[in-house]
């Protein structure tokens, strides 16, 4: 049976306005829960991006002066090869560094424009035999003073600090977000229940004259989804215009060494926003569907 769109739109709109306070409560809860949830995800993406260059057991990076001579470079390479504590050392040249830079700073095209491969430091990505921070630190320090070395960056300084921070913030965010999502679910459930109670006379007549169950249900389910979507829209706005700039600011804070790359790319933001909208649709649809199936019998 065809359900007319204008009918559903009219019914849903009048339901939403009939119950403004309850609707607002649901929407706001969805906003807060999804913003927290999305922020936790964005932070994690940032961590992942920042840690990208430390993948594959790399514990420290020896950044070289862009102006390093071939001799100096060869001597460092030899020292790395001969050191029994070094399991593997990979050279990353200026072009590859530039590619990495472009990836990390994809959000700041102006910054990328000001940079060219020649001014970027080439580097050795070093995977030591052990992961013991004391040993790694001592090992890295032996290279810090060599001629032609710009800086030695340790994973445990960067990765672990970011991860610790993330674990502290992210886990709490996620826990709060999950609790609030449950609250949002129950609020939507209750809003729909109240909406159905307010319209019980209409529903009674509809059943009496033979309206199908779906015809009666659909406006309420659409109402639940719209509440959640309104919340998701605000949450997406918050994440795009508040959370992401904040994360970007963190990375510009210079608290971490160069190339910290603690950034959120447009793609990260898009997937997170899509996920947030998807979750909103799910809790709106399920919350209202449960209410509808529990309180609308044939």
């Amino acid at each position, binding site marked *: 049976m065809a359900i007319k769109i204008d009918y559903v739109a009219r019914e849903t709109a009048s339901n939403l306005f009939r119950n403004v306070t309850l609707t607002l409560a649901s929407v706001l809860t969805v906003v807060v829960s999804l913003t927290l949830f999305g922020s936790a995800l964005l932070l994690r993406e940032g961590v992942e991006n920042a840690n990208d260059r430390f993948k594959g057991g790399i514990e420290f990076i020896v950044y070289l002066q862009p102006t390093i001579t071939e001799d100096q470079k060869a001597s460092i390479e030899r020292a790395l090869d001969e050191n029994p504590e070094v399991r593997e050392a990979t050279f990353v040249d200026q072009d590859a560094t530039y590619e990495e830079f472009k990836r990390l700073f994809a959000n700041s095209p102006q910054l990328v424009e000001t940079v060219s491969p020649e001014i970027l430091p080439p580097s050795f990505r070093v995977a030591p035999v052990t992961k013991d921070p004391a040993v790694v630190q001592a090992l890295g320090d032996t290279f810090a003073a060599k001629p032609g070395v710009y800086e030695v960056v340790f994973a445990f300084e960067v990765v672990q600090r970011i991860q610790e921070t993330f674990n502290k913030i992210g886990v709490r965010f996620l826990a709060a977000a999950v609790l609030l999502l449950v609250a949002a679910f129950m609020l939507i459930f209750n809003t729909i229940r109240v909406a159905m109670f307010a319209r019980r006379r209409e529903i009674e007549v509809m059943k009496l004259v*033979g309206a*199908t169950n779906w015809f009666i249900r659909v406006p309420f389910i659409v109402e639940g989804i719209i509440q959640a979507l309104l919340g998701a829209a605000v949450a997406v706005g918050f994440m795009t215009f508040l959370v992401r700039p904040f994360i970007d600011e963190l990375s510009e804070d210079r608290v971490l060494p160069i190339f910290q790359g603690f950034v959120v790319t447009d793609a990260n933001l898009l997937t997170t926003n899509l996920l947030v909208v998807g979750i909103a649709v799910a809790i709106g649809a399920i919350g209202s569907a449960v209410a509808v199936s529990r309180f609308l019998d044939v």
Partner: protein
Amino acid sequence: MIKLENVTKTYKGEVVALRNASLEINRGEFVFLVGASGSGKSTFLRLINREEHPEQGKIYVAGKDIGALPSWKVPHLRRNIGSIFQDFKLLANKTVYENVAFALEVIGRPRHVVKTQVPAILELVGLGKKMSNFPNELSGGEQQRVSIARAFVNRPLILLADEPTGNLDPATSVGIMRLLDRINRTGTTVVMATHDRSIVDTMRRRVIELDRGSIIRDQSRGVYE
């Protein structure tokens, strides 16, 4: 049109609303259900509409065993059955026209059908001039006419009436009964539960009397008692 075979219905296994009831109502009949309050009249009507399920026995409506009907088909059963009540069950926030149109809209009738059928049926029940009034602006008799219009606008095979004159004065009741009689003459089967002695005695139609759930009398051209 309606057939009951050994139908028993109890509430919570204690109160017997209908006990081993068997009967058949033919197409186009006009049947009064009489009996004291709690004798099972309303349950009888609700069973035909499948608002209730019998514990035992089978109910056939238009040749179909409605107990075997899947629940998604129940709305289609109800489209063939109009219902009116003592308390009218009109929607207070809708006009007369909208109340009747609502019944057609929610079963997906196209707009042009609604636009032609609703004024026609309201004309038929004598409310052609009150289409844009709200229910609380009408007398009880007029409200019942609206509810009859709503029940009949879809031309159902059966009209179930649960004490339709229960809230109306005798003169108004006569008008409602004339209307129901007219509807019956179009071929619609009418089953009406009532306490109204004078109506039953004047109309002289088939009378089925219930007493604590049992059929104790079934008489064509009967009287109230």
